[in-house]
């Protein structure tokens, strides 16, 4: 399975534009930095130069938001070409994307639309076939395994027939890919589903995953907006999510971990403090 040799005792952070200069200047100790692959698809320019500079100091994880791996319309060859080129340039420690769809034909339009969002797929055999086929295509093109992340989903479907952990277990078994376990997303879904005990629900989810499939863990903040919980990556990791993370480390051992912060990006030190907390927990997991 795709757990890598990256020093897993230190957590990583999402490297976002407001922090580019400070991260390069301070070079804080981090397990790795993660970037959104699509932000570096351009032929050249400043962002790509920063990424190359970051790569000289850190392992880089390429985390995509646009492969749309669950799309029945398939993976966009242009997108896959750009990702392959970027992977060749950066030699990332890990490549990942989401179990979602975004591409679909539109009535009356020749080109397939790309919604540029992480839209939910159903947990059915048919959706699993589509996802598996697309993941296999990507892995063959990149000549490496990838990690596939569980979503925070604001819609779920009446014909869902496979429990989500089993869905991922089957995906990983069929394709050889790994799972990027976003513990915040599990919590957001639990809260939106209105389960009686969200924390217990999340732990049960974690316990249902095969030990060998989780190759990375994501942590982030969420917000409550009226009657819905939004996975906005715009605040500190919530206490309940730290609890699920501790449970996951207890089950899976030390796994490369990322703290994401994408909206209302704070001072770098705030993000580093969150990463430091995750690093301490990782170290305890190693010691245990």
């Amino acid at each position, binding site marked *: 399975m795709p757990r890598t040799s990256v020093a897993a005792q230190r957590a990583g952070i999402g490297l976002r534009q407001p922090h580019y200069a400070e991260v390069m200047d301070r070079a804080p100790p981090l397990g790795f930095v993660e970037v959104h692959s*699509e*932000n570096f*698809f*351009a*032929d*050249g*320019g*400043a962002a*790509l*130069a920063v990424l190359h500079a970051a790569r000289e100091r850190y392992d880089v994880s390429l985390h*995509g*938001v*646009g*492969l*749309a791996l669950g*799309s*029945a*319309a398939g993976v*966009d060859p*242009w*997108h896959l070409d*750009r990702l392959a080129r970027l992977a060749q340039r950066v030699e990332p420690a890990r490549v990942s994307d989401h179990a979602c*769809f*975004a*591409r*679909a*034909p*539109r*009535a009356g339009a020749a*080109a*397939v*639309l*790309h*919604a*540029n*969002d992480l*839209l939910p*797929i*159903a947990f*059915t055999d*048919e*959706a699993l076939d*589509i996802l598996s086929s697309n993941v296999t295509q990507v892995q063959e093109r990149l000549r490496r395994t990838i990690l596939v992340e569980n979503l925070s*989903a*604001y*819609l*779920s*479907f*009446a*014909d*869902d027939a496979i429990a989500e952990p089993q869905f991922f277990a089957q995906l990983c078994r069929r394709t050889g890919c790994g799972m990027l376990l976003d513990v915040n997303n599990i919590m957001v879904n639990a809260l*939106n589903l209105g389960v009686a005990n969200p924390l217990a629900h999340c732990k049960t989810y974690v316990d249902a995953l095969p030990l060998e499939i989780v190759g990375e863990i994501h942590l982030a903040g969420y917000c409550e*907006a*009226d*009657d*819905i919980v*939004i996975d906005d990556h715009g605040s500190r990791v919530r206490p309940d999510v730290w609890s699920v993370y501790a449970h996951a480390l207890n089950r899976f051992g030390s796994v490369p971990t990322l703290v994401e912060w994408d909206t209302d990006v704070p001072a770098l030190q705030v993000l580093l403090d969150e990463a430091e907390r995750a690093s301490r927990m990782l170290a305890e997991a190693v010691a245990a």
Partner: protein
Amino acid sequence: MNAEAQRQRQLVALLLAERADTATLATRESASRALRGLQAYRANADASAARALGTAFPTVQALVGVEDFAHLAHEFWRFDPPTRGDLGDWGDAFASWLAEHAGLSQWPYLGDCARLDWAMHCCERAADAALDADSIARLGDTDPAQLRLRLAPGLAVLSSRYPIAMILDAHRSGDDAAFDAVRDALNAERGEAVLVSRDGWRAVATPIDTATLDWTRRVQGGVDLASAMQHADSHFDFTAWLASALSSGWLKGIDVVRD
């Protein structure tokens, strides 16, 4: 079409529809809850559209204001939704759409400002290229009919009936005197020709004369140096242009093409 493909088409159509409505979606959530979920995705699309276009078209956004720009982005997303998963690559048709938008007649220059914004955006994303200094010596030892000038990736020229470079500079600088100059130019109906190139990582818009505009277009068209010189405007000074082209990074090399 299989059920999952049908569901995905349906959900995308609901995202683009005028109103949020989940009546046709079979969800696990209650109807009101599903509607709230759909609204969250629709809000994501609006935010993504405004953010992506705002990044690519900062002058247009400054001209119409952030709020109205967000409405335009919402409208454009439905008119010409993205087809690729890199939103930095989306917006090619925005300028022509703005130019024909019935509600924007008070800004007749908006379409041309958008063309310039887009050229700047594309220039900053273009491939990085170093000057092939040795190749410049070919000017002294090779027949011009066998030479082709290699311009910087992303370099673009535009012409407009409006002072588009002045408008862009005024919004970049926020300087009152620059806005006064824009008003004077608009009142005098002074247009501009502009060359977009990169200074370091940042795109810059340089006003150029029509002779340089025509020259650059011809060179971009791939003609050999002798032909370009032959058809150049009588006021065009190649030596002066070459000095500017080298100091400003417009020219990256000279290729020898043997038939």
